[in-house]
């Protein structure tokens, strides 16, 4: 079996807080940066337009705040990553250095794309997130520790429960999040499934 996954049990580091519901993938990585045939260098453009507009308003975007440089945990709010299926979005975030995202909820395709590259997206309650966002904003040196095994996030004196669907969590913890290896394995079973689909034989009988 071919797999390049490693076990992912936890992520730890300082946090970068990004407030706002419904932050879409066009904002995470604007479409003009999708003109590429690799994912390399995308981190340079993560949130580019939001960052520029924030700078113009005189309030730097969290990704530009010096204290948040080198952060490994991204803290967000609801429906993060809605919009297009571009994997460029989690790729840009991960390549910037983020190893886990905690939010109130995630758009489904974004969640799946993140899982595919070994980037856990865990959910916490809105109230807990408010505390985590404030903590990251006011005490940016605080280390956030996301532990998938215990389902807890520890940051300073805070301990909050974080959740993730079981299958995704197991995939990360057992190192099976890169499912390609599993999928190409045992192709004869795939052929058995294909054999019962009448459209593959042109409805011949």
């Amino acid at each position, binding site marked *: 079996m071919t797999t390049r996954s490693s076990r992912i049990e936890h992520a730890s580091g300082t946090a970068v807080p990004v*407030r*706002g*519901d*419904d932050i*879409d993938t*066009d*904002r995470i990585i*604007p*479409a*003009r940066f*999708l*003109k*590429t*045939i*690799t*994912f390399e260098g995308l981190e340079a453009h993560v949130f580019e*337009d939001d960052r*520029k*507009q924030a700078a113009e308003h005189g309030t730097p975007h969290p990704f530009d705040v010096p204290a948040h440089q080198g952060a490994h945990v991204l803290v967000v709010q609801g*429906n993060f990553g*809605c*919009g*297009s*299926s*571009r*994997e*460029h979005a*989690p790729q840009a975030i991960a390549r910037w250095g983020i190893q886990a995202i905690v939010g109130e*909820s995630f758009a*489904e*395709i974004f969640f*799946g*794309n993140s899982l595919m*590259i070994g980037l856990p997206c865990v959910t916490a309650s809105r109230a807990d997130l408010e505390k985590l966002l404030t903590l990251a904003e006011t005490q940016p040196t605080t280390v956030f520790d996301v532990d998938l095994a215990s389902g807890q996030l520890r940051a300073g004196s805070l301990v909050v429960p974080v959740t993730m*669907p*079981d*299958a995704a969590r*197991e*995939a990360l913890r*057992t190192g*099976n*999040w*890169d*499912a*390609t290896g*599993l*999928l190409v394995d*045992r*192709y004869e*079973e*795939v052929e*058995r*499934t*294909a054999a019962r*689909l*009448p*459209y*593959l034989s*042109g*409805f011949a009988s």
Partner: protein
Amino acid sequence: MARTLFQKVWDLHTVRMLPNGQTQLFIGLHLVHEVTSPQAFAELAERGWPVRRPDRTFATVDHIIPTAARVRPFADLMAESMTSALEANCRKYGIRLFDPSTGSQGIVHVIGPEQGLTQPGLTIACGDSHTSTHGAFGAIAFGIGTSQVRDVLASQCLALAPLKVRRIEVNGTLPEGVYAKDVILSIIGRLGVKGGTGYAYEYAGDTIARMSMDERMTICNMSIEGGARVGYVNPDETTFEFLRGRPYAPSGEAFDRACDWWRSLASDSDAEWDDVVRLDAAALAPTVTWGINPGQSVDVDGRLPKPAGSADAGVSEALEFMGFAAGQPIAGTRIDVAFIGSCTNGRLSDLREAARIVKGHRVAKHVRALVVPGSQSVAVAAEREGLDAVFRDAGFDWRGAGCSMCLAMNPDRLEGREVCASSSNRNFKGRQGSPTGRTLLMSPAMVAAAALAGEVVDVRSWSTEAPALAGV
């Protein structure tokens, strides 16, 4: 046991349960385009894997393709290199590519159905979130990311968890001037942009049953804007008649056998849905988005909301970005650009409806207006009916097929703070190419009327207006 279409198709395509609890699902049709595939092909080559089912894999160029001059090499070097990468990969692996030389190029979600590739009962995947469009035929169609594109190329399978099913019943007669686009914008407005997370949306009811395939595609297309990765309509005679005679549809007796099978896949009347929502079509009005996500919409005769404190941070942020005042009417909003096209509303019936409004009028002097057909076939059919002339005479640009200003990866884009009346599906900040550009989503007929008036107008009264108003 009674089951929904989703459950039947899911079960039929299940290969096995994976050790991590996900389902290994066989993918019946894989559609590929130039933006989300290069990295997938590169990894495939790196790992030394073949494409398992090139016969079930089809490609086109749509996202970055210029819609004005199409001489190769493209002036945009990155567009050229992405296009050549796709061409090389298709040659290498024996994948059929619908490029402009075939006369069948177009937006991936327009050409799948056009070719008869999209059929009931299939699982369909494509590296694009609007793959939900294909659900209009009773297929289960997923938008996927690039790593999953690689998985499908390598194994013809995906590792997924099943979805719940929400039935959305739309009943009643749509009033004049109210379209499928208004139905789906209303659904999203009501259930929210994340209301569909974890669900497949099953659209049903007599309004949907009377709709053409084009209209059903418009609705399923925007399921993702409501957070639902999958949307579908149960297949019926309208579906079968659309498919009859298409290049990749079965023919002769095989077609009859196919119809029997397709019919058997529709949700059983006593199936259990995880949720049921009802909508009265007769109560709907032309709908326009005013904000920065597709759930932020109002009836054309309505007013923008007033944010009620900090709980409405999203409303305040949207009003600020759009430069609109709380409580202002949406009608009368001045526009700079009018865009008719996209996988939501770039098909022949959309162009016909827009042309009906435009005929004999002139685009307002300050408005830049363009029509981008969803595919080369749509363009040819429209030209045969003289629709291109109607648009050109009115002052619209008539373009080649592609995604164009829906996401502005080609040269068509907004400049600065321009406001665009658009028949596309996303009004996110920066979506149409200018980081500060503003998008108002609406039906193609409403875009046409806005182009003529130079501002957002109610197509219901516009269509009865005398031509004297033209050109103001």
